[in-house]
């Protein structure tokens, strides 16, 4: 069995974001970039499958981004993926995930390997669009199961059984392989890559592909246009209510009712 996982690079949610002049992109200098946490679930799931089963031959991790190699793919390789593919071109710096999925699908078809299982995060934490996984499945003509919180692969490696989180319940589905799974929080706890593994990751094979390496690169035209990025309004300062407990409680209730209008 061969597994492909995704490791997209996103800004760290704790880092301070600055919008660059022009308002269409983020200032990348000093910006801490990390592997999309949902993709880390995918990588961890792949690595654990390889640790548990004897029939997993290879884990390939794919990413898209200009910096070579990017932080996300280094993390994934350190966590235990065997080799990487990185799509690297200016045209991929936009936000159109359908275009990115189409490009990655083309890159996957270029590989000599056929993948039995594709694992990716449910969404990327920067755009939160959640389109990428399902779109990739469509371009590869694979069945797709979304937002999986528990995954079992059959003993013979021909089908999977997945628990999906749906509104108020869990849905259990079965699906033949090959298939694409998007991973939801709760599926698995990703490991903290150890230092020696981070160092070894630098030596693992990484294939870099530009748009021109893909068949029919001309087809890749963005359907989505980014107009403007604006920061959210600053949080209003915290108000402290002081005094004896009864007075504080009364004041709090008053403010919740009259000012915040929540009760």
């Amino acid at each position, binding site marked *: 069995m061969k597994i492909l996982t995704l490791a997209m690079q996103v800004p*760290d949610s704790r*880092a301070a974001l600055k919008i660059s002049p022009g308002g269409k992109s983020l200032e990348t200098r000093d910006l801490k970039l*990390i592997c999309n946490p949902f993709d880390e679930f995918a990588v961890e799931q792949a690595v654990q499958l390889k640790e548990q089963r004897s029939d997993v031959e290879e884990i390939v991790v794919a990413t898209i981004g200009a910096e070579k190699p990017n932080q996300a793919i280094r993390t994934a390789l350190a966590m235990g993926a065997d080799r990487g593919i990185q799509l690297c071109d200016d045209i991929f710096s936009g936000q159109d995930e359908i275009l990115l999925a189409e490009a990655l699908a083309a890159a996957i078809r270029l590989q000599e390997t056929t993948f039995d299982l594709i694992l990716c995060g449910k969404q990327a934490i920067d755009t939160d669009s959640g389109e990428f996984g399902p779109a990739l499945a469509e371009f590869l003509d694979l069945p797709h199961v979304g937002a999986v919180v528990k995954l079992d692969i059959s003993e013979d490696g021909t089908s999977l059984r997945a628990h999906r989180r749906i509104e108020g319940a869990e849905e259990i589905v079965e699906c033949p392989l090959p298939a694409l799974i998007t991973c939801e929080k709760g599926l698995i706890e990703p490991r*903290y890559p150890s*230092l020696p593994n981070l160092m070894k990751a630098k030596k693992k094979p990484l294939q870099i592909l530009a748009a021109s390496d893909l068949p029919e690169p001309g087809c890749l035209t963005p359907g989505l246009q980014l107009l403007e990025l604006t920061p959210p309004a600053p949080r209003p300062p915290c108000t402290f209510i002081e005094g004896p407990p009864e007075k504080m409680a009364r004041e709090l209730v008053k403010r919740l009712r009259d000012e915040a209008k929540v009760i």
Partner: protein
Amino acid sequence: MNPLVMALLLVAALGVFGVSIRGRWKLLHLSGERPHIDRIGERFRLTLKYALGQKRLTRYKFAGLAHKAIFFGFLMLLLRTLILFARGFTDDPKFGYWIFDSGDLLGNFYGLIKDIYIVLVITGVVVFLHYRLVIKPKRMTLSGEGVLILAIILVMLLADVLYEGAGLVLASRDAAGLHFSIWEPLGSLLIPFLESAPDGTLVFLYHLGFWTHVTLVLIFLNLLPHTKHFHIITAIPNIFMQELEPAGKLKPIEDIEGRIEREETLGIRRIDQFSFNAILDFYSCTECGRCTDQCPAARTGKLLSPKKLTIDLRDHLYANQSGLIKANGDKSAAIDDLVPAVIDTEALWACTTCGACEQECPLHISFVDKIVDLRRYLVQEKGECSSTLQETFSSMEATGSPYGVGSDERMNWAAGLDVPLRSETEDVDILFWVGCAPATDERAKSIAQAMARLLNLAGVKWAVLGPEESCTGDVARRAGNEYLFQAMAGANIETLNGYHTKKILTVCPHCFNTLQHEYPDFGGKYEVIHHTEYLAKLMSEGKLTPTHEVNTTIVYHDSCYLGRLNGIYDSPRKILASIPGVTLVEATASRDRGMCCGAGGGQMFKEDEPGDERINFARADQLLETGADTISSACPFCMRMLTDALNTRQHIDIAQLDIAEVLLKSVTGA
């Protein structure tokens, strides 16, 4: 007496002893690291103070005094035993190496001294037996071994007295004169009981006493390397070769990336990686349990016991002795990883690095460095630690702060205040290193604000780094992530050296300790001052004067990284005492015996390990017992931990103030 028997006894006993010691000696050298023998003068001074002076023993008063009696007794009685060994080879019952022969001046004098010390040792042994059999303190390992050894000492000494008493009576019969001797008072005491005994019985008792004594001494000697009484041999070398670096300082792992390339372990994974000094520590543990008795984790029912940690490592070492010696440090030999087979993971992560154990140990055994070394391996090579700590590490990587607050928010605390930025200020006497909590934590911000106001009132030329400051890396280092610590230290030192920084002021004892003691290893050498010392200095120079009354009863909580690890106890108390209206009270556990708040060693950023109680709750209760209405501290972590405890206990009536906040109230009246 009987040269042949004596010779056989000595050869057999010393032979067996030699074999035991040879194995233990080889274990000391497994890691290939050399023992500490630099700064000889200082080492002799410390050995005089702590080994001969028994300085730490009397921190537990009666047990300490009893130990002193036995310790000095053993030193004095060593000569007596050597004399008796010699008498085994001769027929002269008065033989004493020609200098100490009985009847001679020195011999008589030594005889008297000897008897005094026999009484002292017996008293000490009785006190110890009382501890072991009657009081049974929880801290001690109450083994049969302990009682057996005490019994051997007791019988050994009484046998000597019997030998001497019988000898006196026999001698008097030969000389038919006065036989009572003031130089041999204990033996003389037996005369009334032995006087009427027939010669044959006396000769038998004389021999029984002698041979019992020498045999027991030799058995005792051979028990030493296999029991906790090994400390009789190892204690003095262990104290002599102790770590001389500051108590709060950890050793760096040199050349981390090179070590990974060469596949050398980061931290400690297996028992054979412990240094000469660490193994000597294991040999020296007496299982007295003072460490565990003072350990905040053990006191609140966590799995950690510093004593058990040492004993478990020692027993694991002994159990694998032959295999370890055969492998001789070979990395491929099959030896267990220490965690979790020997040291429980939960115990390892319960340590707050407060140093109470190390301060207490009469033998200067270290614990914190070993615990951190074990964490270093787990975190860096296996990527194993709690998910909250992982989150903290990645926050530090992403934002430079364990709180995950970005550098752009590091000056929010200063809004509305006159706070000069270092990058915009030319003439700066002292750089105020704000620290992550005072810069970004809602409550702790007020400490930074109070400090800024006080600095301005005192007319100090100061500045802050603002967005250029990041965490010192203390949390990462003590949680085992040395690589991250070194990265953060490197970046901070580059900034600080870029401004040619000489003096740094901190309000956080953790920042203080790391900047002061740990940054020099990486090229950052500064004069670092904690705000309690700095404010006391400004007051003594008349630059700050507390004039307004602050009418409250204050109990001061000692931060471990300020007090125990850096010896600063007086300045904060001096400041509080000089504030009009303040009544200063002390908790029963205060100063060097003050208990940790539970935040150190990375605990601030992880869940408590399971136990009976949370450490901060236990500490808050100790402080509340004083009846104070204000708890004052000088560490943002301590404050946060105590606030959590007070809030949960619904003590809204108790105020909590940093030393700087109390002082500001009194200086400005606001």
